[in-house]
């Protein structure tokens, strides 16, 4: 369902964007269950790692206190 000739916008501010579109293989892989099960595990692990990095940090004891 690639639509390379479809205009990207209905007005002229961004007159034309040339973008890559997925191949038939890429589209198939997006729904291929064994691959998606692996991506599910991998994405969850990456997200958990990112969440762990986002936990609040402790104030540096040597930093000046807020006024």
């Amino acid at each position, binding site marked *: 369902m690639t639509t390379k000739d479809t205009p*990207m916008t209905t*007005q002229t501010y*961004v007159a034309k964007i040339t973008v890559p579109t997925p191949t038939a293989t890429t589209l198939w892989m997006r729904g291929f*269950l064994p691959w998606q099960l692996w*991506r599910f595990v991998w994405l969850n692990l990456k997200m958990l790692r990112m969440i762990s990095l986002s936990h609040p940090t402790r*104030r540096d004891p040597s930093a000046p206190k807020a006024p």
Partner: protein
Amino acid sequence: MARVVILGAGIAGHTAAMVLRRTLPKEHVVCVVSPKPYYNWIPSNIWVGVGRMAREKVVVPLAPIYARLGIEFIQASATEIHPAGNPNHPGPYIVATPTTPGAATESVEVAYDWLINATGPKLRFDRTPGLGPDGGHTHSVCTDRHAVDAATALDAAIQRMKAGERQTLVVGMGHGTCTCEGAAFEYTFNVEHELRRHGVRDLADLVYLTNEAELGDFGVDGLVIRNGGFHTPSSVFAGSFFAERSVQAILGAHVQAIEPGLIRYETLDGVDHEQRYDFAMLLPPFTGVGLKAFGAQGEDITDTLFAPSGFTKVDADYTPKPYEAWKPTDWPSTYRNPTWKNVFAVGIAFAPPHPISRPRTSPRGTVISPAPPRTGMPSASMARAVAENIADMILGRATEPERLSSMANMGAACVASAGSGFWAGNAVAMTMFPIVPDYTRWPGAGRDERFTFGEVGTAGHWIKLVLHHLFLYKARAKPFWWMVPE
């Protein structure tokens, strides 16, 4: 005994209340004041808005949960804060108007020692004539009830297409200063998925109308995503998805007015345009809920607590500065009001120091630039940090907030559903770290490429489903809810 009052029971307020209740001994009071009797898991409103999920699946009644946990609940809408009290009421207190149907509407005074403002936004449909479901001509998915109405209108459009009538569907932002572009992006592709499911895609012109200057800006100045062996700008990543699904995009747009069947808008080049529509879901701009603050003698001190936007001032650097001078350290980390040290604000309720996307105006001076997003995962993270800081100070473990939770040091996961259905569903899974780019730590892209990535697939849809069930489980305070991370 300390008394902590939380205004609002959305993702931030509900998280703060539950963390405080779990952390503080029972002699301390945790009280939630919220105008709605239920919690709404807003990210799933998207599925309600396309008719694929019942409203009841995204709301949770609060009273039974709070009764079980030992949290005081007042169903009321806060209107005033008196941080210094007054001669008749020596301690700080808030004034709220009850919203329980059929109950007395006389205002109540609620005393506090510590206050967390988590009221979320006021939905400013009034900023654009004709915008919104209440008296306007467009739909919204901002609340559960709005989403139900949007689903009904979308179904009517689909039925017209089934009868052979061509329809134009417009989804996006109803004003040049809106935020939450991710939600509009998500709704666009859910609608697209539904049109295909009903076999009417060829009869629909689907248009995404946004204040973003580029696709994939999402109010965070865009991302550089690690994907397929390339560092890909999110404008290309998102643009590819638009091209694949044949969705037209109108970029850099400020909606001026909406008439039945016609949207009038100005673009960043200063030109006026019109867009016809048969169905439109356009999000409104946000402001604070309009709380007022009064001093001990009854004088108006609203400006000590609130920015002109109505959002609460916290420990951010609000000094006006150009885009080039913005720094990650401008962003707050304790969410404490600098004047009233026992007042905090989390989620959308805190005033950001400036946008994250670069500011843009049209030649006529119209601001057309996304406001910074601070919903979902970031709002829950900061709510937990604030709740734990307050608990530490009440229990004498700290004299100052020790946990720092800045959006410049916090990541976000955005799983944008692009169609429901366990096997056929699809989602764009994106993460970024941090939300506020830091060009000193990560020159070039401003974010850590290991945790700034995106991909499309059914796995993303499963993650979205898991998040739906996990966060509603947590919202219901079921066993071990506290183990679910923000």
